[in-house]
């Protein structure tokens, strides 16, 4: 049984079909990349999985449990963590308290939550800034904070929405190394990424969306050669060349 399964998921906004009869699965221990041009429906898929949007049709399951009808906080409690494309820190809470919010998923004891949060901040390299407020962090630090918060909830599956957008090459390399470490520890990941080099390096499998439909699925090397994918990204001429 796959950890996460989508079958025939459809979502429309008014007349626009954002996601159309989408089916794919993520096995436990995999890193799957979800790619596609701007506006192809990737973030909508994340919002459907995490309960921020309700599908108009189709079914989603996590570890065999139906997700349709569950609230975001319930889905988090099942073991699905997520980051937001635009970082959403709690701006009046310190970096440490931001992560403690996530850590309270596993414990009601403030001291234990603090200990968990501090360990995670150490891991993502923000320990020195734990007393800072989020607005005083750099973008790269805020992305790491976003990741730390999601990790603190102790997820089995982590959804990362463009955690590398806007980072320098060095910061991107650090982030890739960190995601690999998480994966080695047994975390399953589904990642949306525009930085192609990063997503190719990380993913064992790619799912390609175009206008809300899956046009291709497979190992990164195969996907990169697929004419439909090339057409979606680069246009008609490049595909026939």
């Amino acid at each position, binding site marked *: 049984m796959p950890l996460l399964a989508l079958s025939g998921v459809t979502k429309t906004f008014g007349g626009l079909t954002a996601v159309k009869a989408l089916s794919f699965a993520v096995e436990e221990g995999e890193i799957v990349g979800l790619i596609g041009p701007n506006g192809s429906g990737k973030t909508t898929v994340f919002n459907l999985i995490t309960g921020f949007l309700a599908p108009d049709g189709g079914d989603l399951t996590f570890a065999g449990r139906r997700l349709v009808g569950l*609230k975001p906080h319930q889905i988090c*409690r099942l073991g699905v963590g997520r980051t937001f494309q635009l970082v959403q820190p*709690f*701006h009046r809470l310190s970096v440490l308290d931001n992560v403690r*919010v996530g850590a309270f998923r596993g414990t009601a004891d403030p001291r234990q939550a603090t200990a968990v949060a501090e360990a995670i901040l150490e891991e993502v390299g923000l320990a020195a800034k734990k007393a800072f407020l989020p607005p005083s962090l750099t973008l790269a630090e805020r992305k790491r904070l976003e990741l730390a918060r999601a990790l603190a909830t102790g997820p089995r599956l982590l959804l990362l929405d463009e955690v590398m957008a806007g980072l320098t090459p060095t910061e991107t390399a650090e982030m890739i190394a960190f995601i690999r470490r998480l994966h080695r520890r047994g975390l399953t990941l589904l990642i949306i990424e525009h930085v192609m080099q990063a997503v190719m390096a990380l993913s064992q499998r790619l799912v390609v969306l175009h206008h809300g439909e899956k046009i291709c699925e497979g190992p990164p090397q195969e996907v990169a050669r697929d004419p439909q994918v090339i057409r979606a990204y680069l246009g008609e001429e490049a595909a026939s060349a």
Partner: protein
Amino acid sequence: MRRWLSRLAWLLVLVPCLTLPLYVGQYLAHLAVMVLFFAYLGVAWNILGGYAGQFSFGHAAFFGLGAFTSTLLHLHWGLSPWLGMLLAGVVGVLVGLFCGFLSFRYGLRGPYFALVMLAFAEMLRLLFETWMAYRYPLGLPIPLQGTSLAAFQFRDKRVYYYVVLLMLAGATALCAWLARSKTGTYWQAIRDNEEAAEALGVNAFAYKLLAMAISGGLTAMGGTFYAQYFLTLEANEVFGVQISVEILLSAIIGGAGTVLGPLVGALALQLLAEATRVYVRAFSGFDLMVYGAILIVVILFLPQGLLEGLRRAGLALRRAAGAA
């Protein structure tokens, strides 16, 4: 050294607070009661408005219901107002859950929630005014019993001082404890970003309801104190907008979302109101204009509240001392 200093600071605050009635007369005792009373109401509002970030503009609803609950129970069934205060708290909790359920169920946020609370308080005001005019056209005949512990009536205002001091201490301790707990952390997360909080496993609906229940319950108990202190009850007063505003002002002026903010705010506001009342007498209402002007200045220059201003002043002083 640091620990010792902080203990000394506590003593310097606690001893005068506990012994104040020994060396002040009725007038200053009344002023002190008002400071502590509005600090208490500010703490109650702050739990919902400052921590959970749900700005209520109609806390008079809880306040008035609390005042009427204990008073009517005392009048009709002879129930001691002390017990009445507890029952007022229960009424506040239930009404808080009711209002919260209706508002949050339909996702009302920000100004919409504030307006619903205002409308609710106004509805209750009209309801009680009409009912009073029909049932008690001459006002509620609260039997005056001089000084009676069982009836929660004291001739000496200094007794009320200790009662409200205890209420304030209890509410502040509760707030301080909650602020550091899971509940308080979740409230602040909801206040700053409800969606991000949900994604981290926070049941925002349930935690907002909890804040409404606690805040409503405490405010209603404050209503009982008010009724016992003044021993008169007017529906248009206890359910009025004026009360709603005064309740939230001490928290906001002092520093919303901080444990001590409402205390600082109530102290500053009550002293300011009293000072303008006594010293500014050019013409009738002029004191209120001065009071309002000072409020505007504070909100413009210290939007985070007086406590934050004090903290910054302290930092600047320390830096200046370090540089010298």
